């Protein structure tokens, strides 16, 4: 069927509709283009920001290299007896036990910031005796360090060994805990290094380290440093924090009990 001839008005309207459709298509196209450009810019800026954040984050996570072991802080420990790894008078009524991993940087911090005051005010005065359990959850370096620490304990010098180790602590699991490093730490702590390293290879040293793990699991110790406190032969309870205020309050509480 032949199509009807369009009137001038219909032609005008058709052209107008076509023009509007073209304009709408152009608007949509330019809007889409502009949005894509904005989106790409947003992706680029976000990616740059993430890279900067990652670099900052990585820099913050880079631990220091090990230092040369220095003689243990003798003024802190001088004159305080140590028997079987327990620092202080055997008659002290309260026992604080610190669970540590020698590679743990927070343990080193606590040794620097908390232990000197604790030892001066509580251990040296005969109120508290300080025990230690060396765990090795951070890695193989921790295990070797814990075994040699058992050798130092055999010589009645666990605490000087711990403090000397913390003073020289390096990057976790970087392999810095070599026998040479441990020998330097032992010597700085006044420990017979040959004997300590030889003892580290014995079943007794392994047993000591295993027992620390067993004790930690029994008490639910899941972080280091963690202190437990006990009066006399009573049951140990785990302290949730390790700042000097918490320790002093817990000791005072146990002493009253």
């Amino acid at each position, binding site marked *: 069927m032949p199509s009807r001839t369009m009137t001038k008005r219909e032609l005008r309207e058709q052209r107008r509709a076509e023009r509007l459709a073209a304009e709408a298509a152009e608007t949509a196209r330019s*809007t889409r283009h502009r949005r894509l450009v904005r989106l790409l810019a947003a992706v680029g800026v976000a990616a740059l920001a993430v890279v900067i954040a990652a670099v*900052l984050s990585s820099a*913050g*996570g880079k*631990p220091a290299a090990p230092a040369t072991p220095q003689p243990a802080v003798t003024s802190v420990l001088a004159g305080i007896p140590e028997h079987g790894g327990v620092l202080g008078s055997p008659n002290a009524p309260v026992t604080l036990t610190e669970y540590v991993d020698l590679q743990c940087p927070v343990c080193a911090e606590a040794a620097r910031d908390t232990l000197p005051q604790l030892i001066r005010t509580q251990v040296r005065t005969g109120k508290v005796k300080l025990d230690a359990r060396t765990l090795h959850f951070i890695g193989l370096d921790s295990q070797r360090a814990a075994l040699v620490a058992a050798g130092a304990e055999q010589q009645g010098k666990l605490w000087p060994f711990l403090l000397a180790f913390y003073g020289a602590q390096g990057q976790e699991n970087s392999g810095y805990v070599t026998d040479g490093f441990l020998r330097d730490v032992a010597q700085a702590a006044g420990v017979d290094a040959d004997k300590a390293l030889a003892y580290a290879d014995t079943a007794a040293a392994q047993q000591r380290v295993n027992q620390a793990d067993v004790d*930690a699991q029994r008490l639910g110790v899941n*972080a280091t440093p963690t202190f437990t406190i006990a009066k006399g032969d009573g049951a140990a309870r785990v302290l*949730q924090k390790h700042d000097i205020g918490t320790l002093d309050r817990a000791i005072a509480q146990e002493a009253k009990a």
Partner: protein
Amino acid sequence: MRLASVAVALAGLGIAAYLTIAHYDGGTTVCAISHGCETVQHSTYAKLAGIPVALLGLLGYVGILVALARDDEPARTATAFLALLGFGFSAWLTYVEVAKLEAICIWCVGSAICMTLLAALSVARLLSAPPLGRPASG
């Protein structure tokens, strides 16, 4: 899409708020034995330039929710930018958890999923919105 984004952002806000509270109320710093949130929260990666990452996440979700309050072109672009930023940073943190800390924090994974969803939703919302000059349906 906007409503779905608000819902996801609120879920992420809840997770980030929990992690921020846990960070500030988690006691003194420790080396954690158990792998998981404790390890991640106490790692050196838990802070960026001294600011807890959980707090940064919280601020990110607040920013996204503020941007979602409006439904115009700049707000849609801002939402997409913040969500992409959050997605990228979440991806980096997830890599750190798996490759460096060898510990997975389920709450952090939850937040990363929220950021991924928000990035997808906000990009789709930005690209699919009607051309300028016509009211947006969201």
